[in-house]
């Protein structure tokens, strides 16, 4: 979780990520942010987020992102 928060804070230092519940739906993370984020997740966690996983529900909260990463790690 700590590593993910570091990535997110680097993208948007002004956002309190852990308090947000609709990061994508509220437009805090746009499509360009998501692309950068997926690249970072791949680098840090060594998991590949596939195009099918790019849906708002997977990126709306930090917990949802963490769940996605855990699921991808388990699938490997």
């Amino acid at each position, binding site marked *: 979780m700590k590593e993910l928060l570091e990535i997110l804070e680097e*993208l948007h230092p002004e956002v309190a990520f852990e308090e947000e519940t609709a990061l994508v739906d509220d437009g805090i993370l746009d499509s360009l942010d998501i*692309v*950068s984020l997926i*690249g970072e997740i*791949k680098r840090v966690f*060594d998991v*590949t987020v*596939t195009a099918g996983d790019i849906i708002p529900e997977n990126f709306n909260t930090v917990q949802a992102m963490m769940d996605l990463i855990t699921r991808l790690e388990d*699938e*490997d």
Partner: protein
Amino acid sequence: MLFTSYLFLGFLALVLILYYVLPKRAQWPLLLIASYVFYFAAGAHFLLYMFSTTVTIWGAAVLIDKNHAAQKAYLKEHKEGMDREALKAYRSSQKKIRFRYFLAALLVNLLVLAVVKYANFFIDNVNGVLKAFGSGEGLSFVNIALPMGISFYTFQAIGYLVDVYRGNTPAEKSLPRFALFVSFFPQVVQGPINRFGEMAPTLYAPHGFDGRQVSFGLQRVLWGYFKKMVIADRILVAVTAIFGDPSHQGAYVFVGMIFYRLQLYADFSGGIDITIGIAEALGISLRENFNRPYFSKSLPEYWRRWHMSMNAWFRDYIFYPLSTSPALVALTKAVRKRFGAGAGKRVPLYISSFAAWAATGIWHGASWNFVVWGLTNWFILMLSEELTPLYARFRKMTHTEHKRSYDVFQIGRTFLLIGCVNLFDCHATLGSTFRSFASMFTMNNYHIIGDGSLLQLGLSGLDYVILAGAWLLVLAVSLVQRKGSVRAQIEPLPYAVKYVMFFGLFLIVLLMGAYGVGYDQSQFIYNRF
């Protein structure tokens, strides 16, 4: 064996009859035989190219899949005792093995494609450089015929390889079954580029005869023939006359540009209607390739609605992996640090889409015209992305957000914009493309539109009337399509009405299809890609 030949119609009828008469377990093998016969008819030696793609991709995918399975089994047994670093190291070592299989098959197939499709383009450019440095002796061109549909089936097979490598789809263990996926005759010529995971369930499944499904499929085939033979092959005569003669400039280019748009849509979407219709009659689902693209209000929207399967391919297999690649992630970080968040997050988009559009251009053909065509698309798309907030403000200020008239303006603007970009497709060289583009604005000969000059382009007044009527019918069908499948909407009509409609359409194709004495059955435009 062109789709528009009597031989093909006979072949199709035979395949359809056998498909439903033979035992169900013989259905997919029958399709494989039919596909290889169809491909053999294009040139016996072409089969070698297709077969080498089939075998290399199939073999690599099976090896990758085996490694995936071995990794899973190993981790199931040992995962508990491994810490995160050890897990990472193990996964990485296995991934390296899979990557080797993947890369070997990828390179072999790209090399084959490069040699048959791009060798002469490469030689031509090398000769250009040699000439510039004063060397008179250039390399001689190679004489290799382009195997039918090679860009389509190679990309479809590579897409499958990537899917297996990513673990998104299991590998097909049977070589003959995989060979059918690569060679399936309705789609091998011009796509759509399908995904194994989507196509396999209906491709190999046994299908009982379903009259409604067969009838729906054949209705779509008929509609495809209508677009191809009544519109595309007719208007082709005028397009060829305009762009084949360099003296046709100014207004002629404008008319030719619009005619070419109509021809390209009728030709390509008509061909795809025939393809998807045949597959539907066989109970097989293929990807859609068009979603009424000429109603698009912007270029980005157009590219989501035109040649959708190719776009999705470049998005999923080039744009997406590149934009999340380690090198671009590092570059994004560096740019963000130096120039701020706004610049940083544009890096993956700009670079990856540049690569994807350059590849899309070169995929279309071995010429600089296509490369510039791709990059022009890229430039307009990026500009459109940057201007989106400005447009939104403009529409708010001018209160045109919900105005229908503004939508119509946008549709017209997008149509003309794509027309201009597609001029690259109508000319062989960049010089002639730019010359003809500029002449539309500098030459004042627009009187030719009304003074009968257009009747000198090989089309008679009657041809223009037929074209106008046929195009209105396509437009009407597109409008009805907004409420869902046109065929499903026609279905509840009384039998007599339906009979008159379909028999009428059949007669139109038969009587007004652009053929007859001295008329060449023409290839589909996308066959050459």
